[in-house]
Structure formats: C-alpha cells, structure tokens
C-alpha cells in the first residue's frame, strides 16, 4: 500500500456542507491524527475512507483502490478497518471469539483458519484468555480492544479510530493508546485517529486540524499543537505544557522554545533557572 490518499470534495449534509473541499493524504505506515471540535466534520471525512459514506464530489483513493468505484467497496473494507466511538454498539455476538470471527466470516475465510486468526488478533490487543467471555461484561477499554481485534483479524493495512477513546475513562484510554502505539511500531499499520483530545495527537506523525468542514492546517504535532492562535481557531485547547508556556510568556518569561511534553517543559524551565 504505497498510495497516498488525496481528494477534495463537497458533501451535502442536509442543510449545509459537512465537508468543503478537503485535501488530505496519509502515507503508508504513518500515524495521522485528525483533530477538531464536535461537529466539525472529522467523522464525516473518515467515513469516506471505507465507503461508509459515498463520495459526492472529489477524488479519493485508499490503499490504491478508487473509493468511488462500487466494485472496490468490498475489498476496501477489508483493507481499511474502523473502530467506532460507542463500545456497546459494535458487537454482533455475546461471545468475544464469535464477534471477532464475524468479519472473517463475511469474507468467507475457511473455517479452519478462523480460530488461529482470532487468537492472533486477541494477542495483538493483549486480550488472550477472553475468548469465551461476553463483550457485555467487559470494561470500556476492554470492549474497544475486542472491537479492534475484530478489525485486526482481517489483516487490514489501514485502521481508522473514529473517536474510539471518547467514551472511555483514563485507564481505558491509556489501554487503547498503548495498543495503537504498539500496532504502529510492531505491525507497521497505517493509523488514522480522529479525536478531540489534543494530548492523543502528541505522538502522531502528522496532525490535521479541521474546522467547519475545512482543513485549517496540517503539519507535525509540534507545529500544530504549539500554535496557540491556531488551536483557538480550531476550537481546541492546547496541551498543558503549551498553555504554561504562553502564560509565562505573557508574564514576560520567554522559554527558548515552546514545549510539547511535560519533560520538555521541565527541561526549558530548568534551563531558565
């Protein structure tokens, strides 16, 4: 999968444009964060990647497949998996094992290969031993990991997280984020995560900021998240170290560079001392 995704299109969301001429490209093996406030269009955007929403105008290719071509939809959804926001509304079975097998069965994977693939997927998300459990009885973080395993079992190239951490507690969020990091480092998967938690974007390769259906800016996390003005325009609040930097600056204390992480902030302050 060496293709970049690039497209621009308009989407008529009933009353107004939900997306207005968006250009976005994600390289193979990249971790891209798409940030924006609720209702900015970020979810609408990524639902085009696996043809859950039909392209109305513009061009889009994912994993080398033209999204607009109906013939590709099927293959597209195998190669580009998606984990959704609400952990409760994506299970089809009350047994973890059967739920993970759902996707594989849709692609008519031979019966004999299924259980091996299910086990492998569970191992990737650190949920071995939960095969027989009911997803209903798991914690939020565990549910999302099972949902992710259901996607991973199909061996996709690209995984999209559609605000997958929004409904989780900090512990659950931590679980998902560490799995995402591991996927990227060990499995070299391409990951697109959309979120409104800026902290989650810190370890991304690239960040897209969306506002009112348009891309406001894109760049490295450092370029994006440390730009107070830009954050404000996107309707987001910068991470704590960045906030501290700007408040100190307002008081006449200028750090050498704007820190992105706690460690950097501490480093900068000690340098000043």
């Amino acid at each position: 999968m060496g293709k970049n995704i690039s497209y621009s299109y308009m989407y008529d969301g009933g009353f107004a444009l939900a997306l207005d001429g968006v250009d976005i490209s994600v390289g193979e093996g990249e971790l891209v964060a798409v940030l924006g406030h609720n209702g900015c269009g970020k979810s609408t955007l990524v639902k085009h990647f696996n043809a859950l929403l039909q392209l109305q105008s513009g061009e889009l290719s994912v994993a080398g497949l033209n999204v607009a071509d109906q013939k590709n939809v099927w293959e597209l959804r195998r190669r580009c998996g998606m984990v959704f926001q609400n952990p409760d509304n994506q299970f089809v079975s009350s047994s973890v094992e059967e739920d993970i097998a759902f996707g594989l069965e849709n692609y008519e994977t031979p019966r004999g290969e299924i259980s091996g693939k299910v086990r492998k997927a569970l191992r990737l998300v650190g949920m071995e031993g939960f095969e027989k459990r009911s997803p209903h009885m798991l914690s939020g973080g565990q549910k999302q990991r099972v949902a992710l395993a259901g996607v991973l079992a199909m061996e996709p190239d690209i995984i999209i997280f559609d605000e997958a951490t929004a409904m989780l507690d900090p512990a659950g969020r931590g679980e998902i984020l560490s799995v995402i990091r591991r996927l990227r480092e060990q499995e070299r998967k391409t990951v697109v995560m959309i979120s409104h938690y800026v902290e989650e974007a810190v370890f991304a390769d690239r960040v897209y900021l969306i506002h009112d259906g348009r891309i406001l800016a894109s760049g490295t996390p450092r370029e994006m998240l440390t730009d107070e003005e830009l954050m404000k325009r996107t309707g987001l609040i910068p991470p704590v170290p960045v906030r501290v930097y700007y408040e100190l600056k307002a008081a006449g204390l200028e750090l050498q560079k704007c820190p992105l992480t706690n460690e950097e902030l501490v480093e900068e302050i000690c340098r000043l001392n």
Partner: protein
Amino acid sequence: MPVELENVSYTYASGTPYETEALENMSLKIKDGEFVGVMGHTGCGKSTMIQLIAGLLVPSEGKVLLDGNDINAKGYDRSVLRRNVGIVFQYPEYQLFETTVEKDVAFGLKHSGLDRGEVSERVRWALEIMGFSFDSIRNQSPLSLSGGEKRRVAIAGVLAVRPKIVIFDEPIAGLDPLGREAFLKLISDLNEDGTTIITVSHNADSMAEYAKRIIVLDSGRLIMDGKTRDVFSDVKRMEELRLGVSQPRLIADMLSKRGFEMPRDIVSCGELVSAIKERLIGGGCP
C-alpha cells in the same frame, strides 16, 4: 440542605455470580454549598452512591439523610427529595422525549403545583442558565438539536425544579475541550450561587481545577476524602489507584525532582504558572 450517608451498605442481592458494584459501610456528610468531586474506577461504587443519595436505590443497611430526615423512612414525603435533589445521568440527552424543548424542560414541574406563568418563568430561567435564548429554542424539537445542545436542554430540565443539590454523573464525557470548559464554568457558577454540586468524573485535570473537595472510592469503600488540594497532592496514592494525577501537579513534581523546588500543593494550571513565575521573577536562583 445537607446530605448524609450513615453506615450505608448496598449489595445487589440477586445472587448472581456477577456482583459488580456495592457499597460497604459508608459514612459521609456533604454540607450546603459544597462542590464535591467523586472519583474512582468503573465498578468502585460511585454510581451506586449517587443513586442512593438521589433516592433511586434503597440501602441494604444504614440511612440516607436529607436535611436530617431519613429519605427511605416510611411516611417520608418523597416529593421533598425530588424537589431538592436533581440528578443528571451520563449522556442525559437520551432522556429527552417531548415534542418541544419547552415542554421537555417543564416535565419535572408538572406536579409542582406552580401556575403556568411560574412554570414558564422557571423554564426560561433554566434554559437561559444553560446558555440558550429562550424565545428561539422553546418551540424547537429537542431531537433536532446537536448532541451538546441536547445535553444542555436535558440539564435545564433538571435545573428547572431548582434543586438545592445537583448530582452529575460524568457530565463532560464526550464533550469537546471548549464544551467541557464552558460546562464546568457553568456548574461552578451554579455552585457560587449556593447550589451543592456532587459530580462524578474521571477527568483529574478538570476536577483539580473546579472541585473543592474530592472523595475517592475503591471497591465500595470511601478511601480518600479531603480538600482537592490535599487529595491530589498525594500523587503516589492517586497513581496507585490509577486515577490519574492532574498534569500541573505532575509537572510541579518533575520540577522539584530537578532541584527546581515547587510548592507541594499545586493542582491547577494557574497555580503552576504563578508558582513558576514567583520562583523565576521573585525568588531568584538557589
């Protein structure tokens, strides 16, 4: 109107092998005008606790006292409880059902005995508190609003009764950063006006910023209870409990470790900034 839990225990006696949440011999007093943050893991008993306070569950043992009266005693007038204690559940937007926003907000006032003018006044007040313009929103269908707006309408429906105590269960879950800030500001204003606020939240940073008192539950027991500052200063304990530590507190600790001494009671971003300022401008180098 103080609330008191007196040796309250609650067990789900259905005898299933999946007994998830229970409370064990909890005593707690919340006085007028407090802003209490309740923290703890999923399954620690916090949602049981708030439902007991709201009289939606009946304790297996012990008493829940509102203004000194046992709310589960025979002959207790439950309408006193309903008028004074409001509860906003997680994702309250799912409880909307009326055809217009005005009717939905007025639902809780149906049996209040207020006349129509008063009801309408209350509804206006509640919606305006939640940041709506009454005249433009009143006739809209609650279902046509955006997620954040629905939530504010649902909360207005709870506030319209003018409860002395309002309980929130994860009120900021799913809101974006600006939505969270605006919302927390709003409940903190309510608190300024004398309403007691009890809120369950996972968000250590916002609790550090807004709550005045924090209680922490673990496996159905009250294990920490104190001023926000004191509870969050116990970084070790909070990390052991995997509850998260407020980031400013974390940064202050890291600075102290590097020899850049910081006060031990910083919990909010503002405090961190002013402490650093003081050290760098006022204090001089060690």
